[in-house]
């Protein structure tokens, strides 16, 4: 016993490796089973499943995990017959085999946490597997191969009763001779067969996440050191030093992006388990649901993937359980019996969007309202005043569950509110849209990473603060102090395009003493959950990529700060927690709630069709608009900084070369060229160039515009006839005829016609980044 234990300690690394490998294989197994059920002829899947189970059985035999071995063994017997084609697959068999996978996973978890196989009882499962195997044998009397069925079941029973590890081991060893020896051979065959079909990434290596985290920290420090070096060298005249500093700058930026990428994982890794979830839930509720996935390759930071795992699983279960109707109901409604659940993921504006779309019965606002009133979440009066959209959003209210009857799948009252809280915790947002009878769309927006984030640096009371860009909506500058700021009961409010925006003064909120001496007011419009508010600061400095560092234990209780960061000059700045500030200032209080509510009311149900547009002007007062969602950023450059590369205007932007597109020129306006020369003088007068930054296939492209006018939220009717190329249509916005720009077409066209040198220069930096990188394990 002693010796055995010591050996196991020595074997611990081996065990760890076995666990990692087995988990990976099991995840694939779930998928294979589902694929198999859909297409029972996919024998290469069977071979792969068989191989996985066989490997697990073999390895745990070596490591002395007898219980696991015996369970895997029964499954292997059944699988081998399936693979040989002497037994056909059906739902019952699939269910049993999936349960087997669960059992194996359970034991593996137990091994991981407690170093023992745990005391779960798998005899019923083993019996089922054996019975299924025998049923096959009985049906096919001509199948001569004797199946050693009784043996494994006896073994597994014995194992279940055996309390001590050593006995288990003994039993497991006893089981060895009983094993029919055609299995290993079959496994070899299977491997041969599968090696052609299953592509295992050969150029990937496994790296400990801890190491990656350490690298990330180091790179964060390198970025700071780089910033300081750049600041000091700027004052030096030495050209060699200048050059070296520039080089250091570029290398650091690339290294930072490279390390960030190593932490990125395709969301598909997480989604792999969802086909199984959907299948299980659908079977349990007697529904038919097809799961479709789009954008599996969309990459996210590993920590974020971890954070959205549970919320997403919950949403999926909910959609199948509550969203999709039973087959007969669907038929009655004239829909195909099989419901469809679509998961989409894509990058947009520096964030990841995840959508879960079902074609089920949708959410009926009337039912939601009734339930909410019954549960005492809202009063009948409130319910009557609520818009449909607000009612649908009630599903996010704490303690709300719409299930008509509580099932074992979902509907225990811990639900969507937890989903929402968890998503908001990582700086994301959740939105839900639903049409009764047609389906529900749940939209989740989350940041790409939490380690290095873009932030707006502001000053208040002499201190610098960083505001995460994800919460930032817009910046408003009032030229005169307190002009346009109104007080209601002492609460300052600002009218932003007709809507009342509650204002908070950062210096008052944080009890900073230094009063602002600047003339005018700077309002940072922020989003906190569903609400908006304006944060008044003394000064708006710049946007920067900041490395997030946690607050010390002594300051953890400070809800208004999300962390700290080190600025380029080596000073420390606090990162504001927008949600925390809003809560501490009671922006979410009933008073403002009511305000927001009436605002939503006025906009009514049309809000779903509304689009947020960025309005800008080209020369000659041409008004144009692009959807704000297409815009990555708005920037202003000194005209002196705009350089030429080939025939292309370019500008150095975030350590890369960003091509600039002169919109007037690209839009093919013949007059534009003539005007260009005429305009030269006025251009130099305006020393700053306004640029709309757009991200195209991971590359930033700038659109040169004359003047950025506004951001509006408006319902528009687009007229698409007779438009020039590069324009999607025209619409009347704010009383002016405005053209809607087809951004992707313009960018594509510009990149196509771009001088080869410029294009090469831009692609070079991309290529360097797309080098294969080690994936996190």
């Amino acid at each position, binding site marked *: 016993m002693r010796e055995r234990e010591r050996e196991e300690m020595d074997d611990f690394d081996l065990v760890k490796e076995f666990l990692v490998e087995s988990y990976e294989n099991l995840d694939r197994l779930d998928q294979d089973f589902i694929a198999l059920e859909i297409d029972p002829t996919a024998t290469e899947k069977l071979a792969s499943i068989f191989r996985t189970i066989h490997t697990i059985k073999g390895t745990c035999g070596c490591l002395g995990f007898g219980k696991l071995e015996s369970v895997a063994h029964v499954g292997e017997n059944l699988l081998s017959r399936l693979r040989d084609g002497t037994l056909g697959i059906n739902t019952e068999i699939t269910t049993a085999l999936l349960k087997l996978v669960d059992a194996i996973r359970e034991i593996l978890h137990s091994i991981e946490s407690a170093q023992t196989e745990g005391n779960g009882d798998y005899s019923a499962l083993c019996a089922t597997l054996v019975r299924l195997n025998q049923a096959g044998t009985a049906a096919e009397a001509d199948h001569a191969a004797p199946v050693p069925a009784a043996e494994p079941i006896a073994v597994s029973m014995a194992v279940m009763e055996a309390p001590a590890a050593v006995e288990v081991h003994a039993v497991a060893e006893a089981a060895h001779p009983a094993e029919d020896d055609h299995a290993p051979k079959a496994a070899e065959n299977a491997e041969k067969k599968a090696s052609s079909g299953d592509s295992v990434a050969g150029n990937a290596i496994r790296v400990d996440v801890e190491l990656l985290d350490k690298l990330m920290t180091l790179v964060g420090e390198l970025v700071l050191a780089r910033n300081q070096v750049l600041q000091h060298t700027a004052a030096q005249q030495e050209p060699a030093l200048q050059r070296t500093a520039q080089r250091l700058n570029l290398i650091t930026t690339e290294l930072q992006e490279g390390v960030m990428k190593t932490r990125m994982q395709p969301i598909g890794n997480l989604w792999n388990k969802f086909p199984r979830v959907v299948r299980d839930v659908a079977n349990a509720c007697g529904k038919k649901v097809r799961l479709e996935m789009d954008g599996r390759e969309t990459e996210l930071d590993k920590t974020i993937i971890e954070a959205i795992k549970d919320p997403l699983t919950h949403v999926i279960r909910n959609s199948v359980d509550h969203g999709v109707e039973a087959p007969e109901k669907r038929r009655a409604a004239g829909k195909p019996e099989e419901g469809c659940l679509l998961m989409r993921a894509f990058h947009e504006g520096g964030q990841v969007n995840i959508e879960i779309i079902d074609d089920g019965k949708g959410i009926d606002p009337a039912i939601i309202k009734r339930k909410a009133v019954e549960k005492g979440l809202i009063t009948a009066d409130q319910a009557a005043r609520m818009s449909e959209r607000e009612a649908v959003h009630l599903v996010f209210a704490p303690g709300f569950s719409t299930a008509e009857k509580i099932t074992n799948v979902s509907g225990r009252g811990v639900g969507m509110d937890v989903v929402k809280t968890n998503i908001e915790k990582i700086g994301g947002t959740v939105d839900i849209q639903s049409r009764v009878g047609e389906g529900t769309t749940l939209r989740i927006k989350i940041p790409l990473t939490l380690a290095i984030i873009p932030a707006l640096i502001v000053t208040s009371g002499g*201190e610098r603060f960083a505001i995460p860009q994800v919460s930032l909506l817009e910046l408003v500058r009032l030229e005169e102090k307190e002009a346009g700021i109104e007080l209601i009961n002492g609460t300052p409010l600002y009218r932003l395009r007709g809507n009342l925006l509650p204002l908070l003064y950062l210096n008052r909120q944080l009890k900073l003493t230094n009063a602002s001496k600047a003339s005018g007011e700077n309002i940072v419009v922020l989003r906190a959950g569903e609400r908006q508010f304006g944060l008044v600061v003394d000064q708006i400095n710049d946007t920067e990529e900041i490395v997030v560092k946690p607050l*010390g234990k002594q300051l953890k209780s400070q809800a208004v700060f999300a962390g*700290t960061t080190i600025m380029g000059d080596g000073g420390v700045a606090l990162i504001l927690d927008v949600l925390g500030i809003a809560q501490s200032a009671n922006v979410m209080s009933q008073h403002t709630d009511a305000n927001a509510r009436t605002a939503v009311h006025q906009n009514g149900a049309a809000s779903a069709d509304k689009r947020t547009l960025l309005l800008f002007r080209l020369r000659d007062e041409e008004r144009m608009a692009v959807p704000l969602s297409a815009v990555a950023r708005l920037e202003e450059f000194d005209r002196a900084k705009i350089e030429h590369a080939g025939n292309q205007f370019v500008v150095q932007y975030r350590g890369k070369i960003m091509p600039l597109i002169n919109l007037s020129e690209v839009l093919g306006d013949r007059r534009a060229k003539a005007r260009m020369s005429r305009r030269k003088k006025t251009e130099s007068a305006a020393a700053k160039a306004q640029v709309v930054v757009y991200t195209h296939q991971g590359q930033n492209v700038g659109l040169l515009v004359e003047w950025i006018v506004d951001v509006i939220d408006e319902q528009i009717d687009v007229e698409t006839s007779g438009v020039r190329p590069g324009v999607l249509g025209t619409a009347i916005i704010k009383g002016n005829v405005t053209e809607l720009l087809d951004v992707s077409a313009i960018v594509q066209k510009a990149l196509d016609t771009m001088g080869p040198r410029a294009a090469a220069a831009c692609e070079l930096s991309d290529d360097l980044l797309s080098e294969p990188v080690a994936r996190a394990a």
Partner: protein
Amino acid sequence: MNDNNQYCTFLVDGLLFGVGVKVVQEVIRYQQMTMVPLAPREIGGLINLRGQIVTAVELRRRLGLPDRADAAKPMNVVVRTEEGAVSLLVDEIGEVVSIDPSTFEPPPETLTGAARALIDGVYKLKGRLLLVLNTDKAVNVC
């Protein structure tokens, strides 16, 4: 020489304090500090220690002693704690002294206020007393 009997000493409002050398990560001169709004008053601010952000605890306030004169700049004694490094803001850094364990006595009864809870005991040095600061308790500002 036993490390356990070596103490890093410093002065706070004329009192001589000591912490075990093993606990001390480093001793540095005054660092630019970022104040933390709304934080407990014992928190002096945040300092950037070569890329690591360290919370600085104002020992005078923690011990219930009067504030330093405005012009006087505190020094940092960076100590290791379970939650990472924390800096203790002190008036002046003393030397590292070796102590005869037999001179130890529990905190004197006359010691009052917040200081009482943070002091493990007293060593009777020649002509002066060395107060042994419990760093874990000292940094536990909540």
